């Protein structure tokens, strides 16, 4: 891509990633949540990849690593659900609810949000990588 695109990307990609993290971490307080924030995190990586090429993006997050984080997200979410069994019920909110509208409130909900954002963000980036790699290979033939 051109110099203008690269410069603008260098300035904005961190902000996009930060906004995604913000949406995830405030998911239990304001609108948003794990899914939307996870897609934003994936979009920041996609943004970087479109501007700087796939080698740069690969250095930051390779396909194997992305798959690892995706599986980790699902496992954390399942683990939170299974930890509820300690209290007797699947998906029991075993942590104290805390004071409403504070960052540390809502029991297990913030942790579930983080797990889902890992799952969605890494998963969608993996899909994008796979499709781009497939395209490149078919173009080379």
């Amino acid at each position, binding site marked *: 891509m051109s110099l203008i695109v690269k410069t603008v990307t260098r300035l904005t990609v961190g902000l996009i990633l930060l906004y995604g993290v913000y949406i995830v971490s405030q998911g239990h307080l304001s609108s948003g949540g794990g899914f939307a924030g996870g897609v934003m995190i994936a979009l920041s990586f996609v943004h970087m990849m479109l501007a700087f090429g796939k080698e740069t993006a690969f250095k930051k997050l390779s396909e194997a690593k992305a798959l690892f984080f995706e*599986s980790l997200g699902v496992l954390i979410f399942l683990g939170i659900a299974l930890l509820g069994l300690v209290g007797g019920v699947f998906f029991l909110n075993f942590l104290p609810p805390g004071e409403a509208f504070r960052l540390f409130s809502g029991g297990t909900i913030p942790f579930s949000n983080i797990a889902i954002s890992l799952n969605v963000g890494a998963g969608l980036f993996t899909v994008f990588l796979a499709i781009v790699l497939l395209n490149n290979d078919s*173009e080379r033939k």
Partner: protein
Amino acid sequence: MTMMVLYILLVLMIVGSIIAVEIKDLLSSVVALGAVGLGLSIVFLLLKAPDVALTQIVVEIFMVIILIRATLRRDLESSPTRSRPLGAVAAIGFIAILMMIATTSFKDLPTFGEPAMRVAATYLEQGLSKTGAGNLVAAVMLDFRGYDTLGEATVLFTAVIGVSAVVRRIGRKKANRLKGRENA
């Protein structure tokens, strides 16, 4: 006022969808699809569902990027459209039957803007005190209905595993090598 804006957006979205289906150029079709998604996001925002609007716009952006990436440098020929009179008649017939079923069955639905609050009323009353989450959507998604979200996460996980299994490089390299050997 809101209803008026909703109707205008609805007409715009229908027009955009028709353009996306009918236009010959694939890139223009993707752009029209993106416009439909943006309209849908504004509709969700007007109906006071910011969570859904946020998810809709973000997923739409991702999808448009993937579609543009997939269609940009490729001269996919648009499928040859033959005139099929029987198909058109069948389509109109099915649409008429579906419209008749819809008009009879939609009568029993609660009217727009007055939802039946049998289960949701409990969530609204006890959501904050039971979970402590200020955003009730998050409380319903991850606490009351956590099981559904687990299913959704599993579906996404399976889809990603499937995609990366189908388009993985190792298997294709092997197939290419085999093909090269046959040609040689």
